[in-house]
C-alpha cells in the first residue's frame, strides 16, 4: 500500500482528487438522491409512497440477481444466462407442481437444486474449462432456451402454487411486499458476508489478483465455483419470485435481465477488473434502473424516446462512475 506512487498522490491533494475520492465512495447515493429529487419535481406522482413501494417490488427480481452478479463480477466472472434461467425456473415451478399446493415444498427444493446445478455448470465452463465467462454464459443461455422449448413443446403446462405466488405478489400488513423483504434480507446477509467474513476477504483477494491469492493459499478455483453455485441458487430464488409474480409459465420474458443486471452492478461501483465493489452499490444500481423505467413511463414518454433516454442515461451514469481513460 505504501509505495512511492501513493505518497506522491496524497501530497497533491487538489480539489479534483478529493471530489473523485468522495464520489467513488458515495457517488451512487448522490445519484439516486438527485434522481429522486429531479423526478419528484418533474412529476410528484413518482415519489408517491405507493409508487415507491411498487418500484421496490419490481426491483426484487433483478435485485436478487444482482447480488449473485456482483459476487461473480467481483471475481472476474459474469452470468448472462440469468434471463433464460429465470424463465426456465418458472416453467419448472409450473410443470412440477401443476399448481398443486401440496407440491410446493418439493418444487422449491428441486428448483433450488436446479439453480445450483446451472450455476455450477456455468462455473465449470468459466473456471475449469477456462472459457471466457461472457461467452460461456451466452452459450448456457442458448442451451437453456433450447431446453425450455423442448420441455414444454411450446405449451407450458401448469401454474404457480399459492405459496410461491405469495412470494411474488403477497404483502405483509397489506403494504410491504414479501418479495422486497426476501430481497433485502438476502442483500443484507451477503453484504455482511462480503464485508465481515474471511470468505468476503477471499472474494476481494481473488478478484484483485487471482495469482497472488492462489499463492497466499486461497483455493481460488474452488471458491469461484462456490460463488457460481451460490449465484445460481440466488437466481433460482429470483426465479421463484418471478414465477409468483406471473402466476403462469411463459417461454418469453426476462430478456432485459442479463444486461440490465450487469449495468446495475457497474453503475453501483463494481468494475470488470475485479476486486472492487459492494453489494449495496449494486442494489442501488438496480433500483436506479427500475426507477428510471417507471419515471419515463409516468412522464408519458413514447417508447422511442424512452429507450433513447435509457441508453443515454446508462452511458452517463457509468461514465460518471468510471471516468475518462488515462493513457499514462
Amino acid at each position, binding site marked *: 500500500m505504501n509505495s512511492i506512487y501513493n505518497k506522491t498522490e496524497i501530497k497533491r491533494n487538489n480539489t479534483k482528487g478529493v471530489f473523485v475520492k468522495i464520489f467513488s465512495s458515495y457517488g451512487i447515493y448522490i445519484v439516486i438522491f438527485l434522481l429522486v429529487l429531479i423526478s419528484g419535481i418533474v412529476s410528484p406522482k413518482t415519489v408517491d409512497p405507493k409508487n415507491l413501494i411498487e418500484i421496490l417490488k419490481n426491483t426484487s427480481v433483478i435485485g436478487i440477481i444482482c447480488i449473485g452478479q456482483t459476487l461473480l463480477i467481483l471475481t472476474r466472472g459474469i452470468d448472462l444466462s440469468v434471463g433464460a434461467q429465470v424463465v426456465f425456473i418458472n416453467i419448472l415451478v409450473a410443470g412440477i407442481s401443476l399448481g398443486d399446493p401440496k407440491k410446493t415444498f418439493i418444487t422449491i427444493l428441486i428448483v433450488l437444486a436446479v439453480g445450483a446445478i446451472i450455476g455450477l455448470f456455468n462455473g465449470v465452463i468459466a473456471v475449469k474449462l477456462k472459457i471466457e465467462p461472457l461467452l460461456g454464459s451466452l452459450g448456457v443461455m442458448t442451451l437453456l432456451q433450447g431446453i425450455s422449448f423442448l420441455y414444454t413443446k411450446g405449451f407450458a*403446462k401448469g401454474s404457480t402454487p399459492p405459496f410461491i405466488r405469495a412470494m411474488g405478489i403477497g404483502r405483509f400488513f397489506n403494504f410491504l411486499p414479501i418479495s422486497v423483504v426476501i430481497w433485502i434480507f438476502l442483500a443484507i446477509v451477503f453484504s455482511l458476508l462480503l464485508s465481515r467474513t474471511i470468505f468476503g476477504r477471499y472474494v476481494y483477494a481473488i478478484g484483485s489478483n487471482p495469482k497472488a491469492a492462489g499463492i497466499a493459499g486461497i483455493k481460488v478455483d474452488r471458491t469461484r465455483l462456490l460463488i457460481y453455485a451460490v449465484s445460481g441458487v440466488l437466481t433460482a430464488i429470483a426465479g421463484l419470485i418471478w414465477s409468483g409474480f406471473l402466476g403462469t409459465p411463459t417461454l418469453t420474458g426476462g430478456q432485459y435481465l442479463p444486461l440490465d443486471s450487469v449495468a446495475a452492478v457497474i453503475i453501483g461501483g463494481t468494475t470488470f477488473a475485479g476486486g472492487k465493489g459492494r453489494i449495496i452499490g449494486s442494489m442501488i444500481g438496480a433500483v436506479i434502473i427500475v426507477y428510471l423505467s417507471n419515471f419515463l413511463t409516468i412522464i408519458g414518454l*413514447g*417508447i422511442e424516446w424512452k429507450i433513447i433516454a435509457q441508453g443515454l442515461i446508462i452511458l452517463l451514469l457509468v461514465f460518471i462512475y468510471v471516468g475518462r481513460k488515462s493513457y499514462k
Partner: protein
Amino acid sequence: MKKILIGFLVIVVAVSIVLIGAGCNGQAAETTTASQEKFTIGYDIYYEGNVWSLQMVEEFKYHLQQEYSDMVKEVFYTSSGYDVTKQLNNFDDLVAKGCDIIFIQPLDPTALVDKIKEATDAGIYVIVFAIGMEGEDFTAYVNCDEVQMGQVKGEWMVEQLNEKGQVVPMNGIAGTQTCIDIANGWNSVFEKYPDIEVLPEVFTDWDYAKTKIEMTNVLQAYPDLSGVVSYDDPGAIAEAFMEANHAWMPITWEDENRAMRIWKENKDKGLKAIVQTKPAWISYDALKVGMAVLKGEPYEKMNIIPATVITEDEIDKYYKPDLPDQVYCLTTLPNDVLEELVGKVAQ
C-alpha cells in the same frame, strides 16, 4: 488421434440428434384410394413461443387429420421465431421441398411480396392468413380486418365511457403491422370525440411481466384513467388492477382461459369487458380455403372475417373451468385434445 476422436464423437452426436428429431416428426398421413391426388403441404409457424400461435397450428393439424387426410401426401412445418429473415429462408426451404401449397403468416408486410409472387407464378399456391400484408399476388387471404377490429374496440370504449374520459392504449411490439393497424383503427374513432383523451401508447412486447408492470405504472401515473383499450393479455392487465386494489373500469378483453375466469369473477364488481378478437380457429378457415383451391373448387380470394365477439352474458358459453389457464377459449378443438396439449388442472 484424440482430436479426431473428439471430432468424430461430436459429429455422431450431432447427426443422431438430427435423425432422432427427424424421426420424431414423421407425419405421412394414411393413404386411402390410390386414385385420389395427394398434395404436399407446407405451414410456417410465425412464432413457436406463443400459445396462440401454437393453438392455431393444433387447430390446423386436427382438422387436416380429421377432414382432409386422404388428400395429404406430406406436411412440413417450419418455424420463424419472429425473425423475418428466417421466415424468408423457411419459405425457400418449403418450396425446395416440393410443397404444392404453403400456409404462411407474414412477419413483415412487404418482405414476402416478391417471393410469394415468384411462387404463385411457378404454380405453387400460397395462402396468407392471420397477419396482414401488402400486395395481392397470393392465392388467397384469410384474416380479420385489424383496422376494423381496432375501430370496433374504439367504438365500444367510447360507448362505455359515454364519449368522455381518459383511455390508455396497450399494444404489443412497436413496429409490427398488426399493432400499427389496430392502433390506427381505434385512433380513428377516438379522434372524433374531443372529450376522449388518449394517453401515449404503451408497448409491452406481448410479454406478460412487462404488461403487468407497465399497467401498474400507468395506474399510478394517471389517477383519472377511465378505460384500457388493448391488444394485450388481459390477464396481466387484470392482475395489475387486482394487486393495486384499483377499481375496475372498461377494458377490452381477449379469450384466454385465465382472462375469461377473471372476467367471470369480476364482472359484477365493475369490470366491463368485451372480447372482439381473431380466434385461433382462423387457421381452420385458412385450411378450408386452401383445400378448396387444391380440389379445384371455387373459393374466395379475399376472406375478411369479422372479429369474433364474446359479450358478458356469453362468458359461460366459452369459459372452460376444467382446462388450464393457457388455453384460448375460441377453439374448435374438443376438450380431450386440448387436455392432451396443455394438461389438466390440478385438483
